[in-house]
């Protein structure tokens, strides 16, 4: 239990209808090496408890990327994700941690470079803010 919260890998959860497709186009970009990327059916699948559990088990930060809000394949998923990420961030604040360890982005399947930038920006943020 001594592991510092920010030593592990970054976990990115990508909605398979948008962000995952964007990722596949740039999948082996060397810049993304060492980042755990997995697809999820919809950002609406994400739940605050899961996000916190990932952090607890050593994830350096969790980035959830879903479809643009009005464009979610499952209609409500991105809205639900927004609320649940907010719950997880509130929990982090309460735990005295940086709420930005969990981040949510919305983008479409064509936004490969935006995805890359989002991941790298998150990585940069975590590197800059990692606890000593």
């Amino acid at each position, binding site marked *: 239990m001594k592991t510092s919260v920010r030593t592990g890998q970054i976990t990115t*959860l990508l909605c398979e209808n948008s962000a995952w497709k964007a990722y*596949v186009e740039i999948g082996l970009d*060397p810049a993304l090496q060492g980042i755990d990327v997995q697809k999820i*059916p919809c950002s609406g*699948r994400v*739940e605050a*408890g899961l996000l916190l559990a990932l952090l607890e088990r050593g994830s350096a930060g969790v980035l959830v990327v879903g479809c643009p809000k009005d464009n979610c394949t499952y*209609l409500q998923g991105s809205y639900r994700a927004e609320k649940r990420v907010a719950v997880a961030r509130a929990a982090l604040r309460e735990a005295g941690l940086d709420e930005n360890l969990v981040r949510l982005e919305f983008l479409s399947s064509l936004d490969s470079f935006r995805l890359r930038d989002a991941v790298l920006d998150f990585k940069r943020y975590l590197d800059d803010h990692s606890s000593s």
Partner: protein
Amino acid sequence: MFPSDAMCVPEGIRFAAARVKAEKLDKLLIAGCAAILHEGYCERISRAAGIPASGIDAVALPARASSAEAARIIRRAHAALELMPRFEIRRVPLSQEVLVVGDGQAGAQTAREIAALGYRTTLIEKDAPAACAAARDMEVLSPATLASLDGRPGAYTARLRTGREGEGQETECVFGAVVIAEGVPGADTRAAPFSPGRVIALSDLEGCFERQPRRDWPRLVAIVLDFCIDEGRASTQAAVHSALAVRERFRRQVTVLLRDARVAARGLEALYDQAREAGVTFVKHAGSPRIRSSREGVVISCRDTVLGEDVEISCGLAAVSVDGLLARADSCLAAAAGIEVDGYGRLQQNNVHLLPELSNRQGVFVIGACRGEAYQPEVLRDARDAAFSVHTLLSQKILKVELSHAVVDGDRCALCLTCVRVCPFKAMRIDEKEKKADCIAESCRRCGICVGECPAKAITLPAYTDAIMMARAGMAERPTIGAVGKR
């Protein structure tokens, strides 16, 4: 582990399929370059190898990954794949009967097209007598309404209420698909902002052409679109048409106020240009214009978005498009059919994935004014789209459903109804016998929204359990899991 040169090419797929068959494998993990991540790759191997796609996973290894790094990636994917259950396929016969609600232009056209494709079609209309006649393979019931729509896509049970209020009767019928093509009620032209002779409905303006002699026409006539909600091409067409008529027949000034000129249709742009050349003024407004009428005339105030300032227009007569007034679709019908409505009360949520004719329920289609499309050529196209979608669905005769839908653990379910309320697709219901929530495999879209909402953590999406997702991230699942002993 089987090494191969190129996994993404047909040889690679054939190689994989051969190994699966030779070794009698039921799961397969493929590691390679990013090409194997593309949509459909696992499905192609699945077809070639004869094992379910859910048992196949592909992971991409970076070109310069160290062997330790590669091993780590493969280990995680392997751990997750180990946890992946094998999904059965259910074969569900599709009813070849179709229900169409509403006998307007959209409904009648759809019903005729569907009947012509050989499906027994029932058209119901709430107002008697129906304008549309019965035909071969097509029954028309009126007055008749849809009281409820339950069950599974492909075999929905509809309760139809026929006959007049109070003396009618209810019948239950099974339909493979449902098309809702209701109109929306017309706006009340006796209520604000209307005022007789001063502020009239745009649809009544044409009536004035014959009745009203030229000397009675005021100097300026205003036509207002998008009064409270954005309108479509139908309104733009009607407005431009009327504006031109007033300009050309009576030589009066005409100002058309609208949020946006919606002219993206054949001939409409040309008509719009013609009106501008004829001297019709177009003012683009934001928000809702204010209309005050008095004995002297009508004053319309609004924000002119082009000038960026508030303007007042005084005219002798204002014609307001009733389509711009908020006229909600039949909320009883929406509730009975389980269709979500948008912010304007239209029977289709504002989401591009639903356009043009899909709804939040599988096998239930919405077209025409009730979904907010009133432009006639579009309505007819909608009708064809709906008929085509019905045919695409029902012509399969048998629906193959992979049983990877959300699963409810009856021991944990507290019957709180959260999943029933949050599922966008009406896939969750309460199983009264088992006393637990239950997911309808045919309706479930495997999004996992219910999983995230369930306060009892009673729902899992078997292909995306916490355990599988944790394994993919290289972690063990939560060490302490609750929920013990129930019912």
